[in-house]
């Protein structure tokens, strides 16, 4: 690396640090500030994942318990992967501008992200229930559990590590993809800095880099935080399964 280039990189690092340490950026009342953008980011992501869970988990539990729609469960995750998240976000925004049912800022992004999160949540939940040891389920039936009790007291707790692992993957993916929303809407949380920085060319590079660092940190923290939530939510007996499930299912879809 030449001296000039080296100097440029050092300059960029310095500018980025200055950008990040500017107290104004950490002002909780500023709409362009980091705290606000972080909250906005999480607001979009959490809304999308909650919506996806409400829609997918009960359906998947029901279908898996009844051993229905096996082919759907295995193909839905592949189909989901094939849909480009960027295209989907733009499409949802486009549809929102045309129908006028919802605003063009918050909901199109949340709904697009929900659609992206549905396949991994659905498939993981479905697979989780199907993988519960058949002998355990049979034993429960043999002792007189009703079908609803089998699902609620046996299948759900035993499947929960894999279900939560699936939701975790989807959540991290949603947090990552939320940033892409910044291209299209005023939402997009921390993605805003990156997109705006890119738009300003070389002058915007410190902003791009700072935004990227914040974004990467937020995603990794979201992943770690979900890991803690998993541990709190899981029943004692299956907690060890969680790590295994996590490693095995890591790959959902990248954002």
């Amino acid at each position, binding site marked *: 690396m030449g001296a000039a280039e080296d100097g440029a990189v050092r300059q960029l690092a310095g500018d980025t640090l200055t950008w990040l340490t500017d107290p104004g950026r950490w002002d909780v009342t500023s709409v362009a500030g980091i705290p606000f953008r972080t909250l906005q980011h999480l607001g979009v992501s959490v809304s999308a994942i909650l919506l996806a869970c409400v829609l997918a988990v009960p359906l998947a539990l029901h279908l898996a318990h009844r051993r229905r729609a096996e082919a759907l469960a295995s193909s839905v995750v592949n189909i989901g992967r094939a849909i480009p998240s960027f295209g989907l976000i733009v499409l949802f925004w486009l549809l929102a501008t045309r129908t006028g049912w919802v605003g063009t800022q918050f909901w199109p992004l949340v709904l697009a992200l929900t659609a992206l999160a549905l396949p991994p949540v659905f498939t993981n939940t479905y697979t989780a229930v199907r993988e519960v040891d058949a002998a355990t389920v049979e034993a429960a039936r043999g002792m007189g559990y009703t079908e609803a009790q089998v699902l609620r007291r046996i299948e759900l707790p035993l499947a929960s590590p894999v279900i939560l692992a699936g939701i975790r993957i989807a959540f991290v993916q949603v947090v990552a993809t939320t940033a892409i929303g910044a291209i*299209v809407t005023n939402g997009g949380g921390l993605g805003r800095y990156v997109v705006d920085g890119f738009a300003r060319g070389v002058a915007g590079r410190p902003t791009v880099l700072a935004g990227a660092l914040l974004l990467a940190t937020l995603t990794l923290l979201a992943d770690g935080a979900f890991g803690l939530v998993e541990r709190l939510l899981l029943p004692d007996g299956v907690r060890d399964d969680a790590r295994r499930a996590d490693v095995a299912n890591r790959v959902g879809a990248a954002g």
Partner: protein
Amino acid sequence: MTGVLAQARPLLEWDWVGRNGELLWELTRQHLYFTGMAVGIGLAISLALSVVALRWRATLTPILGFGSVLYTIPSLALFALLLPVLGIGDALAITALVTYTILILVRNIVAGIDGVPREVIEAADGMGYRPARRFLEIELPLAMPVVVAGLRIASVTVIGLVTVTALIGRGGLGALILRGFRTLPPFPTMIVVGTLLSVVLAITVDLLLLGVERALTPWARRKTAP
């Protein structure tokens, strides 16, 4: 308001598609080029990492952990982080895309090789195979279905992500989507066609790879053991 303006145009204007076949082909070709480069380079790196992980087991967890972090970092952030090093260009786009293939491919290659039955390895050793030939002739072919499954996931994932590189002036079909969005008023046909073609491309590549897997593993289809 944009909403009012956008309503002026239908979602899909077929005559525009008809007039722009050449552009669509060019963008699709570019999209495939990025995908092929990213998956190809990713596969080479992943094979090397897998050989290391298989030879020195202790490195498997760190390697997967590294892949996992790369996989978790948002694509947008990754472009930005690599920008100072690589500058705007194909190299930036491809490098960023490669990072998403590592976790998927290493995991599947290792799982595939691990899935080769112990007795098959022992029989190969017992008949005098040397390690390198055993790897190429016995382990790799038997791992093929799992490796190809990983390639399919990686390819489909990358095809979706290529669209995001539109932000740094590349993007294949993503460039079309972005153009449709930035045109004033927005041009729905570009957005719809760009997205749909990307999906079609992903499904086509997925099926092609499935076909390759079938062709490479004739033994897996004939199962009529009494």
